[in-house]
């Protein structure tokens, strides 16, 4: 596996959406709002999960800190790295396979 990103897979739903949100630079609060929006209000990120995921993503160099919010400097801004992007691609392909197989086998009953 290229750069060993396979070891991070499968991501939890929360981590997947946090990493995905950081394809554009955002701070923690921005990530919460974005995930809430793209999941149509289904997934509200909890503070401890967000903190834990950001720490782990930083430690594994899947995201980097790119600055801070102009209004509130305690809010740091993060962005996905190339490695993070590779991981997202890998996860999309993996989940696409799951969806394709699911629809093929029992999709008619949906």
């Amino acid at each position, binding site marked *: 596996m290229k750069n060993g990103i396979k070891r991070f897979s499968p991501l939890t739903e929360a981590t997947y959406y946090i990493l995905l949100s950081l394809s554009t630079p955002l701070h923690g609060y921005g990530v919460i709002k974005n995930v809430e929006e793209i999941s149509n209000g289904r997934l509200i990120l909890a503070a*401890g999960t967000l903190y834990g995921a950001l720490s782990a993503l930083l430690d594994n160099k899947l995201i980097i800190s790119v600055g801070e919010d102009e209004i509130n400097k305690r809010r740091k801004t993060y962005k996905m790295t190339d490695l993070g992007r590779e991981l997202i691609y890998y996860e999309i392909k993996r989940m696409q396979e799951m969806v394709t197989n699911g629809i093929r086998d029992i999709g008619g009953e949906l």
Partner: protein
Amino acid sequence: MKKSMIRWFYPWKIDKEKEFLEKQSLDGYRLVKVAFGRYIFEKDIPQKLIYQMDFRGLGGKISEAEYMQIYEDAGWKLISKANGWYYFCQEYAEKLDLTIFNDNDSKSRVYLRLISFLLLTGFPLYFSMIFILPRIDHLNYYFLILVIMSVITVLHLVAILRLLNMYKKVRSHIHE
């Protein structure tokens, strides 16, 4: 009016701690500070408050200021911090999901942070048990020191094992 209570907190029983604090708020006592096993409450109207505790430990790449900001952004008010623990509170609202963890993966990491914190702080303890104790056996109080040190070591080991057990328990409920 203030009320002070001394209580032993077992880090592998976070839910019990949460229950205790929430019961106090229903009885009209709002937590204002936690320090050295002492809980200080202030008399207030009886209300339903939700408490959450998180152990940040030695921290990582994310600063404490940012950590607290993340909680604040999610609606949590920091009440107190004690020995690496952060006590957060929020008023109960029916429509809000007042958890601090979405999944068992992140929930289990609290135990991992606790275990690594204990291992790190326990290092001087084990070092002195192995290297210092055998060299001071000529001292008058050697036996007393030995007993005290042994008790601390056993408690330390028990805590690590209990936390490891909780970690495994939470991890076993992970379903992708």
